[in-house]
């Protein structure tokens, strides 16, 4: 498929009176990896949490604007945030497998609670998701062990598998490797590049090498505004905006 999977129009996000994301327009194509960069506190997390309607779960938080997912406005009338989130997965900064659930159950839980009960369907989906997240060989003999017993990097790949298992067309990742060692990081980056065939990835990162290694386009945020958005190679070599250039060359932020 071609064209835009996500189209954000005039998105504004607030925490009570605090205006965290200001008038952002941005679109993402199918099978694209888009990186969001910018100094700490500039609203990257808040922005992507508006893309799966998670932002509104924070007490006092709200947002305005439109987000078109495959042509439908997720903020349209009658849209159920639960259904939106089934189509827009998310991986968090800290690996957060569900405590008390086994590795298998961690991956299966999304499908199971969406009504899938057939064992064969579940185990097939779990295996597929674990293979895609490059974890299968490491855990295939201990699927019944608790997910929290894995190493940090394995836990994060487990969380990716958990998100993949429900087969969302879009996955959001908020600094998924910032708590990991270089080897785990490399594994996850490799994984993201491979995932491109199946899903669209929007990833927040503080690591500019990471952004240039894996993303097709990069968006630079500053103080809640989208300053510049374009081809990653261009953003990192010939940025149009002075602020982008200053950030990239490490002169502030």
């Amino acid at each position, binding site marked *: 498929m071609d064209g835009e999977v996500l189209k954000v129009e005039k998105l504004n996000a607030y925490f009570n009176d605090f205006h965290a994301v200001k008038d952002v327009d941005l679109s993402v194509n199918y099978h694209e990896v888009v990186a969001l960069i910018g100094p700490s506190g500039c609203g990257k997390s808040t922005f992507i949490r508006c893309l799966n309607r998670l932002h509104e779960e924070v007490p006092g938080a709200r947002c305005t604007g439109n987000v078109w997912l495959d042509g439908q406005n997720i903020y349209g009338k009658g849209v159920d945030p639960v259904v939106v989130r089934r*189509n827009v997965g998310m991986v968090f900064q800290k690996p957060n497998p569900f405590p*008390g*659930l086994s590795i298998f159950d961690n991956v299966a839980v999304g499908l199971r*609670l*969406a009504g899938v009960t057939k064992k064969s369907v579940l185990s097939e989906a779990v295996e597929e998701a674990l293979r895609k997240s490059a974890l299968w060989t490491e855990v295939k003999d201990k699927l019944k062990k608790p997910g929290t017993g894995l190493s940090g990097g394995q836990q994060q790949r487990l*969380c990716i598998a958990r998100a993949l298992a429900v087969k969302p067309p879009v996955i959001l990742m908020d600094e998924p490797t910032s708590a990991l060692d270089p080897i785990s990081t490399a594994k996850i980056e490799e994984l993201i590049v491979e995932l491109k065939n199946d899903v669209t990835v929007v990833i927040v990162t503080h690591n500019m090498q990471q952004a240039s290694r894996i993303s097709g386009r990069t968006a630079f945020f500053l103080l809640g505004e989208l300053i510049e958005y374009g081809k990653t190679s261009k953003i990192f070599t010939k940025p149009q905006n002075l602020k982008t250039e200053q950030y990239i060359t490490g002169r502030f932020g």
Partner: protein
Amino acid sequence: MASKLNLKVTSFTDRKRKLKSQLIIGVLLFLALLACFPFLFISAYVISKGIGSLDWAFFTQLPKGPGETGGGMANAILGSGTMVLMCCLLGIPWGMAAGIYLSEYGEGKTARILRFATDLLTSVPSIVVGIFIYGLIVIYFGFSAHAGATALAVIMLPIVARSTEEILKLIPNHIREAGLALGIPRWKVILRILVPGCVGALVTGVMLAIARVAGETAPLLFTALGNQFFADSLSQPTASLPVQIYNFAKSGFPDLERQAWAGALILVLFVFVINFGTRAFIYYKKS
């Protein structure tokens, strides 16, 4: 190169400081041991007084009249068991629901008021709970196991509610968000992801609440009353261990007093078993 630092205790002030610290540790240890003493004393005393009267008849027979020998507390054991079980059926779901509400939806003013009310309820003397159920149920329907179990459930309710709330609050928020982000409705995130993740702790809280209500006497005096015999139904006055212990202990007949000790021993054992069982359960869950 010889070090100029002296790391060994040599001077008088150093020695004094060390002595003082050892003295304080000694005092603390002594007081801590002293705190265990009532527990050890009660256990030893109850065991020594009660073990002699514990026989098969104690568990299977009804009490004999004053002056007669033999007999047991079967009615009280059965009555206590029934009422504690009924209390659990009512109090555990009720208390857990309240605790879940307080933890997961407990932001606004309503929740603050509810939380305060729960705390107040915890500190209401249990005899007052008994009088309350007396006025609410017993006046209309008479003394019964139903009334007794309801009184116990009211005592259990705030304990279970607050322990459930505290345990759920320990789960970091990003776990809830991970569930929501998977497209799982909030109530399912709570019941199918958060609760299974802390089952061990929740069970502990519930067990301790059961141990607490099992020994309650005052509320049962006003609600289940007591019974020399087995109750025919749940709507009749029902015997319970604490009330029967109380009655026998003040009866003045040595044989009944001996049985009261045996009853006390059973009650203490029950509480022990619950506590040990809980610990064993946690240990099992961990490994």
